[in-house]
């Protein structure tokens, strides 16, 4: 016998007699800031991080700057086809990942290489993916920067925007019903938040009680489209409130604020089995990608203003204040990694590519008959025209 409850969906609604249209339910949602631009601590009551965590975040931010700079150059030299830097947004990505546990799943958009680096992805692994060589875990099937690593709980990147948002809700539901003490974090930009998948994902996570942390990097631009041509409401954070999701807006260039906000979000998501939305306000100092030129849609003065808010400089000033900054160690770290990136790049670009047979694997768990037939025909054709196709591993030259 089904037990039915009487429901009243008007219960929480007050009656008014004034004809008044509402646009803003409340004041603009405030932004959590714990470090000022000089790295000074702005709160005396907030929990802090330890020196080891702060230093690891700081070093990873340096590492990503080095990687991004080298790989943008490598693309300009024609050594890789495409790259996408996250300059200016390192704190939003790296400090949030730092607040997670290794068993938490990370689902990203595409500009979150810092999360992967923080988890321990090696320079060699980055290079193998960027060069689509035989050691690329994606088997050379995806454009550069579409990283993924099962061992590090980092879901393989896909290009369509926002598709990871409802998936992150489902993944976290799976973690919950499997009894795992883990959450899923889902990164996306303010542009992707216009996709239907954003609305579907947030609402489902709220209704179905999914321990998902949705982290929006509001960097002001979706390629060339500025945020004020993307939406007119109070950013992405206000939408969280609309869906009944616990929400916090944070200064995305303030590593400490991002870290504390994410740590709090994780605790709430796990304890209350509910989603949390974080809107990290930041700025894409980089071009959208190596195929983009921002000078055609924004002015230099604007970029300079944001250079002054550089999250890496701000964190360094904070480390100095805390007497945690070791200039010689930082210089040595950067020097080591600059060399490492160059070395790994040269090794990766000389690696062989994958055998042609991999064109039909992983479409299904087993290669079905029709794909085997197509592969056989393809190989016969290529063998008959040996000079007309790129050589793959295992083919006679």
């Amino acid at each position, binding site marked *: 016998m089904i037990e039915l409850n009487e429901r009243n969906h008007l219960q929480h609604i007050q009656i008014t007699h004034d004809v008044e249209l509402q646009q803003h339910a409340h004041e603009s949602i405030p932004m959590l800031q714990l470090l000022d631009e000089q790295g000074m601590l702005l709160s005396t009551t907030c929990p802090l991080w330890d020196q080891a965590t702060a230093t690891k975040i700081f070093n990873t931010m340096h590492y990503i700057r080095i990687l991004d700079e080298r790989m943008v150059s490598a693309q300009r030299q024609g050594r890789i086809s495409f790259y996408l830097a996250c300059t200016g947004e390192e704190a939003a990505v790296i400090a949030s990942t730092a607040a997670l546990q290794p068993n938490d799943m990370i689902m990203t958009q595409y500009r979150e290489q810092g999360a992967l680096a923080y988890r321990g992805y090696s320079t060699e692994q980055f290079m193998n993916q960027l060069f689509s060589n035989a050691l690329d875990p994606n088997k050379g099937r*995806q454009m550069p920067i579409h990283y993924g690593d099962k061992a590090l709980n980092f879901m393989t990147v896909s290009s369509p925007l926002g598709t990871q948002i409802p998936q992150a809700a489902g993944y976290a539901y799976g973690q919950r019903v499997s009894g795992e003490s883990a959450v899923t974090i889902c990164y996306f930009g303010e542009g992707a938040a216009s996709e239907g998948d954003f609305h579907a994902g947030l609402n489902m996570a709220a209704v179905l009680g999914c321990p998902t942390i949705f982290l929006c990097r509001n960097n002001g631009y979706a390629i060339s489209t500025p945020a004020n041509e993307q939406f007119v409401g109070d950013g992405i954070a206000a939408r969280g409130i609309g869906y009944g999701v616990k929400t916090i807006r944070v200064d995305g260039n303030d590593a400490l604020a991002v870290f504390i906000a994410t740590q709090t979000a994780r605790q709430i998501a796990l304890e209350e089995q509910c989603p949390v939305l974080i809107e990290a306000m930041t700025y894409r100092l980089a071009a959208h990608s190596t195929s983009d030129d921002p000078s055609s849609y924004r002015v230099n003065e604007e970029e300079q203003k944001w250079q002054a808010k550089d999250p890496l400089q701000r964190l360094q000033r904070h480390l100095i204040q805390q007497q945690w900054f070791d200039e010689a160690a930082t210089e040595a770290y950067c020097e080591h990694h600059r060399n490492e990136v160059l070395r790994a790049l040269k090794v990766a670009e000389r690696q062989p590519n994958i055998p042609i047979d991999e064109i039909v694997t992983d479409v299904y*768990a087993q290669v079905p008959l029709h794909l085997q037939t197509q592969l056989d025909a393809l190989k016969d054709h290529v063998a008959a025209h040996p000079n007309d196709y790129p050589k793959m591993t295992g083919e006679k030259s």
Partner: protein
Amino acid sequence: MIKMNLLQAINNALVTAMAANPKVLVLGEDVGHFGGVFRATSDLQAKFGRERCFNTPLTEQGIIGFANGLAAQGCIPVAEIQFADYIFPAFDQIINETAKFRYRSGGQFDCGNLTIRAPYGGGIAGGHYHSQSPEAFFTHIPGIKVVIPRNPYQAKGLLLSAIRDPDPVLFLEPKRIYRASVGDVPEEDYELPLGQADVVQVGTDITLVGWGAQVEVLQDAAEQALKLGISCEIIDLQSLLPWDAELVCASVNKTGRLLINHEAPVTSGFGSEIAATVQERCFLHLESPIQRVCGLDTPYPLIQEKQYMPDALKTLAAIKYSVNY
């Protein structure tokens, strides 16, 4: 064996799968205590709890996106789309996510645990938004399987296989015969192989290929053809992706004639794929042009539904044309 209709067989398969494996979850619009608009998920929530059978908000892209995440995590989701006509908001999730998860990650992650169920097809006075047969769109997506049962026995066995198959499966259910198709179904757990067609009736003069509710139409036409002395071989494709070209071609090599019947519009329907493959492989055995008895290239009509449908009479006319060619 118990007498069941097609809906009861599907419900029975879901109960069997959920009882056998606690990872199996059922989600979709109204699938909870209400049991779905067709009652395919009746009593699942009462039997297995709200965590394992739950209503979702009304968002098809969300349902499949959420189910992709569940599948990648290790759960075994069976997601219901209330009508196949409403699956299109989820098209992106299916094409770009479900189907490519394994390929794009080099096999690190996959959505192989996912099964999507959706009632499809006409004959219920449903007009264009409760009658469409969108199977051909999905046969164009490498990485998923497309399966359609024709009766209760096939429905239970194929659905259990689909749920346990290591690849994502779109399981389309012919809703016109949800209650009309009744047959003996084993109570125990059993599976029928995916990717294999089924010879429903052996014959010598012409091969008739169909799937879902149209198999009954082919049987009806074949019975009338027999009275004219024409012996029809009837093949139920069962799986459209991958499809059993070997069995179909072997049959055509024997009979020398082929007729394909489907409700979906003729242009770029799955019949086109079958016809192309058969002419490649059976060219010298063909005695007459391949016949396609299909829906018109129009939106699915309402008041002219009877005229639109590729019924037994149209099928019989095409059989006669082919045999007398």
